[in-house]
């Protein structure tokens, strides 16, 4: 009867040393099985990534220029908007969110804040919005 089998059925008859030996054995086995299982998953994910991305990399290379053009267009559009129009739009938005009239708000200065949100946060936010639609 191995220590582990003994531990399973008759722990009361085991000495302290046997108990310690048995539980160390269980620990080593348990930890290694957990690591092996997760190592399997690690390999599986890595292989999956290679297989899917090996095939998709060519596609993405072709698609890359499209979003770049789109962002440039957007930027240009923003530039062509006249300042007064921008002031009117922002004033109306603030008034609507504060439930007040545009007459109570005076816009003195509009400064564009720099975009410092990391890309993953923006992606996460985008996903959130998409999932609510």
């Amino acid at each position: 009867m191995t220590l582990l089998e003994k531990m399973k059925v008759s722990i009361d008859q085991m000495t302290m040393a046997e108990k310690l030996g048995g539980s160390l054995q269980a620990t080593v086995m348990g930890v290694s099985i957990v690591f092996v299982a997760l190592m399997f998953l690690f390999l599986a994910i890595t292989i999956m990534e290679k297989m899917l991305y090996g095939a998709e990399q060519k596609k993405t290379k072709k698609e890359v220029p499209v979003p770049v053009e789109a962002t440039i267009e957007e930027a240009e559009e923003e530039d062509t908007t006249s300042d007064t129009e921008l002031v009117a739009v922002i004033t109306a938005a603030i008034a609507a969110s504060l439930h007040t009239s545009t007459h109570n708000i005076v816009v003195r200065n509009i400064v564009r804040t720099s975009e410092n949100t990391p890309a993953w946060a923006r992606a996460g936010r985008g996903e959130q919005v998409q999932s609510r639609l």
Partner: protein
Amino acid sequence: MLDVVMKFWETTGYANITWQALVMMGVACVLLYLAIGKGFEPLLLVPIAFGMLLTNLPQSGVMELGHTVLRALTPGTVGETVQMLAEPTAEMLREGIPAQIYTETPGGLLQYFYRGNQLGIFPPLIFLGVGAMTDFGPLIANPKSLFLGAAAQLGIFFTFTGAILMGFTAQESSAIGIIGGADGPTAILITAIMASHLLGPIAVAAYSYMALVPIIQPPIMKALTTKEERMIRMKQLRNVSKKEKIIFPILVTILVSLLLPAATPLIGMLMFGNLLKESLVTDRLSKTAQNELINIVTILLGLSVGASARAEEFLQITTIQIIVLGMVAFAVGSATGVILAKFMNKLMGGNAINPLIGSAGVSAVPMAARVSQTMGQKEDPTNFLLMHAMGPNVAGVIGSAVAAGVLLSLFN
């Protein structure tokens, strides 16, 4: 008249209350205060604490077993049935003995809810909901997180050894060690199967530690890392395609269940829930799993687990031992996660992994990941670790289910 009043008085709880029951009611009220007043894991603690309160009210009978009798089918054949029951022959056992089982008084309500735990139904259902709510994206994007999820399970086995040396049986020690996985449903499942008499203290310990993650983990994390390490910024995670997210749960189910069949109920349900979410074609099922179903099961599981904490079984020295061992399990798990993360960081050149995400390898989704994020932001407010910590965090869920499977196959 006085006689009637006296008899009525004897049937009330007031006449039958014991100091143990009062203590337990006090504990229940403290837990309710922590849940409602302090906002610690209210979704779990409120049902558990209330179940505890109900079961310790004397004469309430919510956890009573039903009174079931065996009766002869017809009064005329009573003698015959008695004889047959007394000396059943192989023939009779095959043909059947003419008697029926008749429930005279049904058992307590929570006793029936509790069957769901005893038979191992509720914990996997909770995992179904958890799976439907979990995004494995960060883990797929950074599969190295899996090792952090594995390291954090060391706490389970460390505590297992401690419990054995303190005189618990192997089955009890397994159930106690699992607290270190910081995974309520897993702890309940293992305890219900291997040491159901300890369900009350183990459930209370497991859920209290999950609620206390933001208090227990930070000092351990701070002690084991340097300021520079806490300030490490990690590389942005790549985008994970839908295809990968769909293949992942199927792959995990097959790989883990083949290696460790005992872990199949937990891993299978977790990944099934995730597949419902990621496949995008079973939207209704996924919504049910992550809302109505998990809510219903949480109510039934919480109330009945709380109800298993009856004064006679709870107010014992073993409860204190379990609570202490659970804390050790949890602390060791968090520490080993951080240590392995430090080690991996060194191996990878010293600037790739922020060791703070290692402690998220104990499950407790998503609190443990949030703690990593807050600790990182204390050093550098513009450092975002949350998504990186979600990787080890969900790996921890898989890891603790695997560890549970190991213990089940070794000692059950």
